């Protein structure tokens, strides 16, 4: 397990205490496993001579997920700490920037909600502009220009270059 490695200790932000958030992950696993098991129980027998039933795999997977969730909770209680993913552009010495994260998620939700109505050309431009704003850029006129160029360019790129017509939304007929 990674918890015993010395490397895990060097990157842990606070050090020492149990990583409580990891209980959340364990709970999530139990929840998913439980749902997979419940879903499997709603499946019916196929043909009698069918060797692998539709529920065979789900039962196995659900059970293992629940077991893994419990195992993770136990490991967490014993002081197992994840060695969070490192990267070229990642600075783990500071805490998680929840504000940026929340803003980005909000931008993505907005994209999902508006895409059918506004179409890719507009939504994509707003997505780019919103995301740069969330990430701390304040040159929003430039970002809007770049975003618009990207979204209209990609719309025509797919339409002309790849032959994939992306729905245009309210700009139908304009583009």
């Amino acid at each position, binding site marked *: 397990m990674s918890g015993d490695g010395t490397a895990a200790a060097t990157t842990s932000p606070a050090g020492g205490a149990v990583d409580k958030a990891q209980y959340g992950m364990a709970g999530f696993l139990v929840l998913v496993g439980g749902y997979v098991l419940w879903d499997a129980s709603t499946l019916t027998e196929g043909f009698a001579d069918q060797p692998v039933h539709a529920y065979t795999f789900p039962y196995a997977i659900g059970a293992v997920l629940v077991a893994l969730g419990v195992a993770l909770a136990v490991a967490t209680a014993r002081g197992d700490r994840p060695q969070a993913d490192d990267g070229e*552009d990642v600075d783990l010495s500071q805490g998680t920037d929840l504000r940026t994260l929340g803003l980005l998620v909000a931008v993505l939700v907005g994209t999902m909600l508006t895409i059918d109505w506004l179409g890719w050309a507009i939504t994509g431009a707003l997505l780019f502009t919103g995301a740069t704003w969330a*990430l*701390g*850029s*304040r*040159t929003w*006129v*430039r970002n809007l*220009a770049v975003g618009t160029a990207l979204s209209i360019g990609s719309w025509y790129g797919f339409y002309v270059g790849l032959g994939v017509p992306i729905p245009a939304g309210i700009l139908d007929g304009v583009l």
Partner: protein
Amino acid sequence: MNTPITDGPVVVAYAPDKFGRAALDHGVALARRDGVPLIIVNDTRGDAYVDKRFAGDEELATLERELSADGLTVSVRHDLVQDVAEAVVAVADAEAASLVVVGVRRRTAVGKALLGSVAQRVILDARCPVLAVKPD
């Protein structure tokens, strides 16, 4: 040349390029002439992986050492900030600077429309006189 009215320090907005060096040369000359301290500001937003206008720690340390060797009082601000122009103005305000020195460059029409210039914003926002220097 501009004559400082108060005896506050001279603030130089520095970058390791010819514009920054031109600003620094003038700043140093003026600070020496008036016997006031010199503050070198070299900040960055830190939003790119590499910022060529953000000097290396060593370079600034050498600069500080050389300049203070012959009697000039030099201090260096080398920080991560939200907004570079705002930070320069804030330092000038906080230190009651007599003068801010910035290096300016020629920009194309498109550049003016799209890019915010640090020098321009310092010139507009600073409450003390600002000296805009062009490299030779």
